């Protein structure tokens, strides 16, 4: 349990941003594990600045440290400069709390929020002195776990992860701790990992990849089946029924160096049933569970007092949907009692005038920029993806923002969506120009930044069967926009690298055969792949080729209804036939209303687990069409498209 600090502090003067590695946050604990306690190292496989604010990790850090059976510390991926020094000096991955080595923990648990961090995960395991492949580990090594949104398809990482947690972690970490504590007690030498893994596989929500057998039919997956009779055929996600029972983090970590989202964050609800068809987060976190308004107020008041922050973000997938958001926001803004103004951030604004009203309340002082995500440029396209914002709503929101003093707007879009035509793509440019024109009525300096990302179909969404656009096709579409916007003053275009989109596509719907590819890319030096200065498509393509795998097959091919998907043995509660129906509906531009305020569609997320929405308001918030069913087609359109017949799925460049 020795601290590595004396060795580390010698290296820190030689690296960029040494404060990444010192810990020292307000709220951090420095536990000394007692015999019988299970020690967890929670790792975010990206830089400290990105990982520290992660709320999931902070919540588990507190819950574990409150558990008398457990202690928890944290670690983040060292940047390449320190990584090189650590390797040459023989210093392993360390915790930032007490600076002990990762290998001395019982559990090393990763938060997986982005596919492009997978090579960092392997690097962290290796830097911890743990064999990267599960089959090479023995009882002396920590158990390697993962949780987070990406674990809904953990198959590409199946070779490296001992166990994977699906869904909310609040309850299951305690159950996992108990299983590991029992194992340590009965087998202090830690000889047999098989027993503990088998016991873990029986904990609801825990998936142990090595307990499952995978069979293929040529390139196709035939089945993923349990190796033993006592292992569940399908692993169901965990869902906490009521957020009110979990007022965490109680002591949000306040870093001593700058990080992203450096402010107080209070989660106002979990889950979202807007039903956007591209959005994995919305699908896998159902149903909606609101935190009681009084608890939100209390967490804001306590948090601001404790941390000294002057900004609080009300977080969720769409915070303007929170019942009574207006009151909570104005109370917070006015609660600047100690003579200090408090500002409120609402990440992920809904696009309508009501939202702008709320934003105006917030942004009295900081009226610099406003971000909206219409996601698609035409109403037709937005019906396909079920992002049901009418043009009127959108322009209403934009007009009201400019008239209230905003000068800049950022608009997020996806391209490469199912059925997308060039008209839809160019609709993005048209929409941006319209926004600038509206803005110019109020301010000469009105401008719009358009940010375009290539669409990556994700598991457990209605688009999981869709063949992603090729790099060439995405580049062509971005080119169309570039040409079209060349002479449009006031519009700035930004886009994500389609090459990175391709790699995300490979990994997000990949199967176990991709393990060797990820390992290969990592061994060839592919670290921090989500950082453009480190990303190199060639490494991935070479690795795919070396292992005889086709990117086309994994990414660009449309999947059929009867195809076995690599995540079919896992469950986010959603019925596969619900998703399939929603996919067919999308191709016919049939919209689906928000089930928070309309009858249930039986998608499975509540019905399967005996839980339900917890929403204070019985009616949708005023002032917006989204989710209210206004103007949407809810029955199949008269021009019926025969099911299972190829529909124009977008992508003329293929």
């Amino acid at each position, binding site marked *: 349990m020795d601290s590595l*600090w004396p060795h580390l502090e010698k290296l820190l003067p030689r690296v960029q941003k040494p404060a990444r590695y010192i810990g020292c946050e307000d709220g951090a604990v420095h536990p000394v594990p007692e015999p019988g306690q299970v020690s967890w190292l929670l790792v975010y496989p990206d830089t400290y600045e990105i990982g520290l604010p992660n709320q999931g990790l902070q919540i588990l850090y507190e819950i574990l440290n409150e558990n008398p059976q457990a202690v928890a510390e944290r670690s983040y991926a060292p940047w390449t400069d320190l990584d090189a020094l650590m390797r040459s000096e023989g210093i392993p991955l360390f915790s930032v709390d007490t600076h002990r080595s990762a290998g001395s923990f019982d559990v090393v648990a990763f938060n997986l929020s982005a596919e492009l961090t997978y090579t960092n995960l392997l690097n962290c395991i290796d830097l911890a002195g743990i064999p990267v492949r599960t089959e090479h580990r023995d009882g002396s090594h920590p158990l390697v776990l993962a949780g987070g949104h990406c674990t809904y398809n953990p198959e590409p990482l199946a070779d490296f992860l001992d166990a994977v947690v699906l869904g909310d972690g609040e309850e299951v970490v305690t159950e996992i701790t108990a299983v590991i504590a029992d194992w340590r007690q009965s087998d202090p030498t830690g000889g047999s990992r098989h027993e503990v893994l088998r016991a873990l596989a029986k904990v609801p929500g825990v998936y142990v990849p090595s307990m499952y057998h995978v069979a293929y039919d040529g390139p196709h997956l035939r089945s993923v089946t349990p190796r033993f009779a006592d292992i569940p055929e399908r692993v169901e996600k965990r869902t906490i029924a009521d957020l009110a029972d979990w007022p965490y983090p109680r002591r949000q970590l306040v870093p001593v160096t*700058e990080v992203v989202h450096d402010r107080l964050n209070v989660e106002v609800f979990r889950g979202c049933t807007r039903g956007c068809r591209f959005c994995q987060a919305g699908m896998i976190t159902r149903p909606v569970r609101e935190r009681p308004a009084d608890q939100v107020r209390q967490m804001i008041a306590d948090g601001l007092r404790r*941390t000294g922050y002057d900004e609080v973000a009300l977080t969720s997938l769409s915070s303007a949907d929170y019942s009574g958001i207006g009151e909570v926001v104005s109370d917070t803004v006015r609660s600047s009692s100690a003579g200090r103004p408090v500002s409120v951030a609402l990440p992920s604004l809904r696009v309508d005038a009501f939202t702008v009203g709320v934003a105006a309340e917030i942004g009295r002082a900081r009226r610099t920029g406003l971000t909206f995500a219409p996601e698609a440029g035409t109403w037709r396209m937005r019906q396909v993806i079920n992002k049901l914002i009418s043009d009127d709503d959108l322009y209403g929101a934009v007009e009201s923002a400019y008239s209230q003093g905003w000068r800049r707007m950022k608009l997020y879009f996806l391209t490469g969506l199912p059925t997308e035509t060039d008209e839809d793509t160019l609709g993005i440019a048209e929409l941006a120009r319209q926004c600038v024109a509206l803005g110019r009525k109020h301010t000469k300096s009105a401008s719009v930044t358009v940010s375009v990302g290539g669409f990556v179909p994700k598991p457990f969404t209605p688009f999981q069967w869709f063949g992603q656009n090729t790099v060439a096709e995405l580049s062509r579409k971005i080119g169309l926009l570039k040409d079209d916007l060349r002479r449009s003053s006031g519009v700035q275009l930004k886009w994500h690298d389609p090459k990175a989109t391709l790699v995300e596509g490979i990994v997000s719907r990949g199967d176990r055969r991709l393990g060797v590819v990820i390992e290969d890319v990592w061994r060839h030096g592919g670290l921090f792949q989500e950082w453009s200065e480190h990303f190199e498509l060639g490494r991935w393509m070479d690795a795919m080729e070396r292992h005889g795998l086709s990117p086309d097959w994994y990414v660009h091919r449309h999947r059929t209804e009867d195809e076995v998907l690599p995540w079919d043995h896992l469950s986010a509660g959603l019925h596969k036939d619900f998703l399939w129906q929603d996919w067919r509906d999308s191709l016919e531009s049939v919209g689906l209303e928000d089930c928070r305020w309309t009858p249930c569609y039986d998608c499975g997320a509540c019905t399967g687990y005996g839980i339900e929405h917890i929403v204070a308001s019985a009616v949708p918030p005023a002032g917006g069409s989204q989710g209210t069913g206004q103007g949407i087609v809810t029955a199949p359109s008269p021009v019926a498209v025969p099911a299972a017949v190829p529909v124009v799925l977008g992508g003329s460049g293929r």
Partner: protein
Amino acid sequence: MIRLRFRYTKLGKIRFIGHRDLARVWERALRRSELPVASTEGFSPRPKVHFGLALSTGFESLGEYLDVDLTEDADEASIASGPDLAAQVTPLLPEGMDVQMVQHIDRGQSLQAAVAVCSWRIEVGGVSPTVLADRVGTLMSAEVVEMVRTRKERTTEQDIRPSLQLLEVDGPVERVTWDEGSLLFAELRTAPPGLKVAELLELIAPEAVESRVCRTHQWIEGDGARQEPLSLATHPPYAGMRAS
């Protein structure tokens, strides 16, 4: 208007935060202290604080300073007195940053301009005391020490000897990460040409495997005497230094 001068340490792990981070740490701590700190005007008001001479990231210190302006209507009587205020603010700062003293001061010269000399305690890893003492002797006995410096793309030679007020090697020092090392005390003048600690070490210990630098004092000169911006009643030498 009331101005408060804080004297504080920066020791241990926290020495690796840079100046911007330090400013933010203080900003949050002052907000939590609920002192009536004056703010700047404008869209995003910041507290009116004035930092002293910058300290390089990674260097420790036993005497850093911060001046804080309070609002016009702040009531002198309601502000805690020195030791109480120090005890009140220290828990709001990260470990390694301890407020040692606070005083109400007159507004005068800026801290940065006032400080003429800094004292440094430097552990030089990988260089023996005899070797180091030898080099220090040569340097101090020279009348002129030319140093090549680049400023705004122009290279000039400067005599930095006037900035070297004192250099003293004080025996060996041990650490787990090196075999032998020396303890060096230095007093460097801040006025041009000035000499940075890193430059000094480059001159006399370029082969050092690690150097641990701690600013022990900052001095203001006047009437042939020198004093600290806030002097502590007693000087427990390095007693405040925490094992890191």
